[in-house]
């Protein structure tokens, strides 16, 4: 219970920082102040909060859990590809969006799209799709909170209560502190996690008798040696994962965060240091996830390994329900916490648990982003601001934060799906498929609102199709193959199209639709184009 007390102390500190520590009197633009911190974030806060906002429960718990089951491939799949694609997107897209936001006063990506393509209701469609895709991301935060507090307290704080506590804390500081509170909390959390990640690695390593010993033991065993290679994953699958980080810059909370920088110069350090932060957080998480396979003296981890073994050896005789139960039992989302529990002294486990909590609680900026989108793209756009004023707009935004958090919490209780699957299947792939919208808006004069609509509807339809496919078709099953080549298959990890993740065809078709439909429809007006491109 002592570690849980550390975590509760940490939550109180977060509440204080988010609500009181950097509070300022609202200026003449309360909406811009609440939703964008008055576009005034400095170098350090911009880097740490932007990085923190992109780190979720998925990044730390999901990655170590994925590494526990799949091995070192997790780092290459998710971290090193993101280390290239995310800063590159910030460099090419983030800086341009920042400049347009500063110039035209945009607060959301849809405002940019509406202005760029002179559209109104199509913008509303994009808002709805973005909102639907972001919701799973927020649910991950609540689930991560529940999982973490449950594990840290040794099961004394049930999942529903842990999730409720985290949701309440996040909701409170987003409600009161807005973007400024959220940015400072993210900065605090990222700093904390960067420090404690290194400590966790050292302490667990020492507790296990050194990583060299653990690695050699893993290599010696035929059941675990493959975890130190990438043979469990095909190169095509590995390649297709490089499309997932395209989603990052298209997440509304990321693009809205780009608007908070005081100067474009603040992107410089962020672009350079982003991969360093990726390395500092993901390498320990993945490494510890892999080495957890040697922690057989930890009963909870041993139970996972036994469930995995049963699944591997008796799969043919098991019913689908038994297989699902074993998969859930062998899932490794909590291995990092189990390692801390077993190898770190109580007080240190508490501190480290607080550090993990820091990474888990990244749903704040997503909640704020949806609130910003609702108040700007819906409420203000449909004249709510004109009728009720800017203060009422901020109030609506705050009430939206409360409503959204409650919805996310109740959904989190209903769907106990592994964090990683949920994130990748829905939100990430969908946002990657929306990449052509942002690229076309910023770099292609000839793009039209109809092209944007086609891409958006395709992204939404494809995400729904994948979700339905995965819930209807039992795994593993080849649905369509031509000449011995699998075209469409249901795999234990999800769906495979030509051996690739669905995100690849989703993004490519989305780009084709943007190009073809734009070329088939009327050119945008000269006036609109001239606002964005030098003649």
């Amino acid at each position, binding site marked *: 219970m002592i570690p849980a007390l550390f975590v509760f102390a940490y939550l109180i500190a977060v509440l204080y920082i988010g609500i009181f520590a950097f509070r300022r009197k609202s200026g003449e633009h309360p*909406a811009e102040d609440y939703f964008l911190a008055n576009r005034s974030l400095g170098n350090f806060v911009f880097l740490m909060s932007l990085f923190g906002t992109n780190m979720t429960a998925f990044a730390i718990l999901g990655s170590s859990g994925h590494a526990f089951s799949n091995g*070192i*491939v997790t*780092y*290459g799949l998710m*971290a*090193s590809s993101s*280390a*290239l694609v995310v*800063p*590159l997107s910030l*460099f090419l897209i983030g*800086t*341009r969006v*920042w*400049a*347009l*936001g*500063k*110039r*035209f*006063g*945009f*607060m959301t990506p849809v*405002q940019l799209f*509406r*202005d760029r393509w002179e559209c109104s209701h199509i913008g509303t469609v994009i808002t709805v799709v973005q909102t639907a895709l972001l919701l799973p991301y927020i649910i991950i935060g609540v689930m991560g909170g529940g999982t973490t507090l449950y594990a840290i307290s040794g099961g004394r704080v049930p999942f529903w209560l842990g999730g409720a506590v985290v949701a309440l804390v996040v909701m409170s500081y987003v409600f009161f502190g807005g973007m400024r509170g959220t940015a400072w909390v993210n900065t605090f959390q990222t700093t904390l996690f960067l420090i404690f990640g290194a400590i966790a690695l050292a302490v667990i390593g020492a507790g296990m008798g*050194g*990583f*060299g010993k*653990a*690695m*050699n033991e893993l*290599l010696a065993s035929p059941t675990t*040696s493959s975890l*130190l*290679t*990438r*043979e469990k994953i095909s*190169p095509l699958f*590995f*390649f297709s994962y*490089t499309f997932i980080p395209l989603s990052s810059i298209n997440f509304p909370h990321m693009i809205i965060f780009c608007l908070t920088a005081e*100067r*474009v110069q603040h992107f*410089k350090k962020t*672009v*350079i240091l*982003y*991969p*360093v932060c*990726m*390395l500092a957080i993901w*390498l320990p998480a*993945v*490494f510890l996830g892999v080495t957890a396979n040697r922690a057989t003296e930890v009963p909870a981890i041993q139970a996972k390994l036994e469930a995995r073994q049963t699944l591997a050896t008796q799969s043919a005789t098991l019913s689908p329900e038994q297989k699902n139960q074993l998969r859930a039992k062998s899932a490794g989302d909590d291995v990092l916490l189990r390692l801390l529990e077993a190898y770190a002294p109580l007080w240190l486990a508490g501190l480290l648990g607080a550090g993990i909590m820091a990474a888990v609680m990244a749903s704040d900026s997503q909640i704020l982003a949806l609130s910003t989108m609702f108040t*700007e793209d819906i409420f*203000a756009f449909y004249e709510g601001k004109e009728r009720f004023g800017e203060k009422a*707009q901020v109030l609506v935004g705050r009430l939206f934060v409360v409503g959204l958090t409650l919805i996310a919490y109740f959904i989190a209780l209903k769907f106990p799906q592994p964090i990683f699957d949920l994130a990748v299947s829905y939100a990430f792939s969908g946002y990657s498929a929306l990449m052509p919208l942002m690229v076309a808006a910023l770099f292609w004069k000839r793009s039209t609102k109809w092209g944007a609509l086609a891409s958006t509807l395709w992204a939404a339809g494809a995400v729904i199709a994948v979700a339905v496919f995965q819930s209807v078709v039992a795994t593993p099953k080849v649905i369509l193959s031509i000449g011995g080549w699998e075209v469409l298959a249901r795999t234990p990890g999800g769906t495979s199209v030509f051996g690739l993740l669905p995100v690849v065809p989703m993004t490519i078709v989305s780009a084709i639709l943007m190009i073809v439909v734009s070329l088939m429809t009327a050119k945008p007006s000269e006036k609109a184009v001239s*606002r964005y491109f030098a003649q």
Partner: protein
Amino acid sequence: MKQFLLTLAVAALYILHQDFWFWREARPLVLGFLPIGLFYHLIYTLAVVALMWLLVKFAWPSHLETESAASNSPSGGSQ
């Protein structure tokens, strides 16, 4: 030319991410504990840092700061 070389460097790093040559290899364990496949991606991440530094140094869109200062009709924002 500078832009071409930087684009080439980005493309090269994207391709280098697909290190199929270490696919089924765990050994050597670098520093006694890091499987070679993981070590490769550690070095890869550091190479990305170097590339980002080069992009910032030689291809920074500094015109954006001045452009953003130029006021235009505020049809965006809270429309």
